[in-house]
């Protein structure tokens, strides 16, 4: 039995179950996607899946459109979320805690339930479903992910920076543009990561809020896989992963502290 207790004694051994989990549920699927993407239906090596994506205007268009929607959603989230976070971080502590929870509260409800409720709301108000509804749904669902990291960075910001700026002659406007805005950038970057990445790949919101009229890239992947086109679906997934990976790198460059915003 001694060997068993030895295994448990070493702290580093405790992580073994997690490694196994990661191996099975993260690494293995990624490897499979990679392999499938470079194979045809018979299992032979091919690049046809990628050339099909480039030559097929429909898929490529959907891809560009998805990125467009993601960018619009992210920009709207910044425009709405930044002032919200700024106001929240400035008001008195107890009151702002309650308001922060109010902003976060929708996240406690499942995203599909919320989106179905949005559909019902649009129906009730006789508003047409479509592109506008899609953007609304996206912003509504992802806004908390933008507010929270920005709020967090602003909360942690040392108040003496603001006082130092005032002391050196900065008007409230200048304090904001010269100090608060640059210092809250890491939070904005985290927010962008947390909004932009998932919006590229969602398909449920698009399906429900546009009555399946507008296809996003996530929908295309889902359709291909549902229709048994595993290899093509894998190739599309790989393309999306590469894009997300690229944005990730870009934001890391921007500021290492970006991740501090995420709790």
């Amino acid at each position, binding site marked *: 039995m001694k060997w068993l207790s030895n295994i448990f004694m070493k702290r580093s051994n405790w992580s073994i179950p997690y490694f196994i989990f990661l191996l099975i549920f993260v690494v293995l699927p990624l490897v499979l996607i990679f392999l499938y993407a470079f194979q045809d239906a018979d299992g032979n090596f091919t690049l046809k899946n990628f050339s099909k994506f480039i030559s097929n205007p429909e898929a490529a268009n959907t891809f560009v459109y998805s990125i467009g929607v993601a960018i619009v959603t992210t920009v709207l989230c910044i425009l709405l979320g930044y002032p919200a976070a700024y106001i929240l971080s400035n008001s008195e502590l107890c009151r702002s805690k309650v308001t922060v929870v109010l902003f976060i509260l929708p996240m406690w409800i499942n995203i599909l339930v919320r989106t179905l409720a949005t559909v019902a709301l649009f129906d009730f108000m006789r508003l047409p479903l479509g592109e506008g509804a899609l953007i609304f749904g996206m912003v509504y669902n992802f806004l908390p992910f933008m507010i929270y990291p920005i709020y967090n960075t602003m909360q942690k910001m040392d108040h003496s*920076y603001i*006082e*130092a700026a005032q002391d*050196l002659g900065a008007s409230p406007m200048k304090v904001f543009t010269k100090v608060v805005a640059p*210092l809250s950038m890491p939070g904005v970057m985290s927010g962008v990561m947390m909004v932009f990445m998932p919006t590229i790949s969602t398909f449920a919101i698009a399906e429900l809020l546009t009555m399946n009229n507008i296809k996003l890239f996530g929908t295309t992947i889902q359709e291909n896989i549902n229709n048994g086109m595993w290899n093509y679906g894998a190739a599309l997934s790989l393309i999306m992963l590469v894009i997300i990976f690229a944005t990730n790198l870009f934001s890391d460059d921007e500021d290492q502290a970006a991740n501090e915003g995420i709790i």
Partner: protein
Amino acid sequence: MSDSNFIIELSNISKSFGDKTVLDDVSLYVKKGEFVTILGPSGCGKTTLLRILAGFGSADEGEIKIGGVDITEVPPHERPINTVFQRYALFPHLNVYDNIAFGLKLKKVKDDEIEARVRRALKMVGMTDYEWRDVNSLSGGQQQRVAIARAIINRPQVLLLDEPLAALDLKMRKDMQMELKEMHKTLGITFVYVTHDQEEALTLSDTIVVMSEGKVQQIGTPIDIYNEPVNSFVADFIGESNILNGTMIQDKLVRFMGRDFECVDAGFGENAPVDVVIRPEDVYIMSYTDSGMFEGVVQSCIFKGVHYEMLVNTPDGYEVMIQDYNAFEVGQKVSMIIKPSDIHVMKKERTTNTFEGKMVDATHVEIMGAEFVCAEQQGFEGGEQVMVEVDFDKIDLMDNKEDGTMMGDVRFILYKGDHYHLTIRTEGGDNLYVDTHDVWDDRDIVGIKIQPEDIRIKRA
């Protein structure tokens, strides 16, 4: 009206946070070019005062003038004042150059002038060639220098320094003190410096303002403050001292440690209770002879570098701290002499605790928000307002706070040679003064108990 002479005029400033009074009617007048230090223990209100001067907090009452202009309502960015912050507050997203140029860029000064002035400021603080460094890569001392450069480059009328050296190590602090003094001379700007370090205050200042409990205790030159402290708090806070209870028998004759001493003070009246302050270096110590004024036995002797610090016990049970170049062995019998001019006599601020109270019934009185049992009283009605007196040595302090009638915490400890004089802050914010032989620590929470027969009740 003593106008134009003063650059800073703070008149009757009061400030409370909730029901806690932080500044209580503080007035301070500073001459142009002076180096003024506001000195006091933490929580005495010195930083609050500085923040009000800088504009980061507003006073509930009072008026602030800079150079004769009322700036009470002026926001901080329009005040002709710059601050060096305690934790530097350098902008982490800007490099050294941009940090220092921050103020000038806001004023839209021309680029080449900014560059020349930044270089001059950097040279002044000894940081030439550091322009393009990231501020986060600098050491604490270097950050402090940049913070000073960032403030002085704007040529303010007044420079505020909020414990700027507190985070530096001793050696660095000493060097920076000298540099600050030098800078003050060169620039000719009025410096207002906040610190809790009495040595720093004595070294740097033209004028020291000693604060405690939101009030100015004494304003004077370092020499005045050291040699002629106005009360036992100042005497205890500045330098080492023996503070003893005494009685002024008559003019120029004071009684303490069980015998009469000649002194030079007068005008206290006959048999007036006083505090006596004797600096440890002012007691002359020698091997036992008949010609000494009083005698004692050396209790401890510690080498302090330049001098030895000895504690001597007198036959009457008093402990005297003495600093001398000669060491005397522990257990040795010694004689001591104190020159009349070295005995500083101060009027006692109070000789007993007095409270406003309210009779509850014949055997209960309410003081400081708690109900105490008192000896049966005749001729008072329930609810009647009364004055209550309790002597310092008649208050019992308990370790176990539940055992007391009420609770308080120890705010100030004064050793009086044979006992401790404590200031206790009660839950309701009242001060209670207690003489005790027990040793308590600062901020200890204690239970407070008073025996019924020790509560004296008088008609209000």
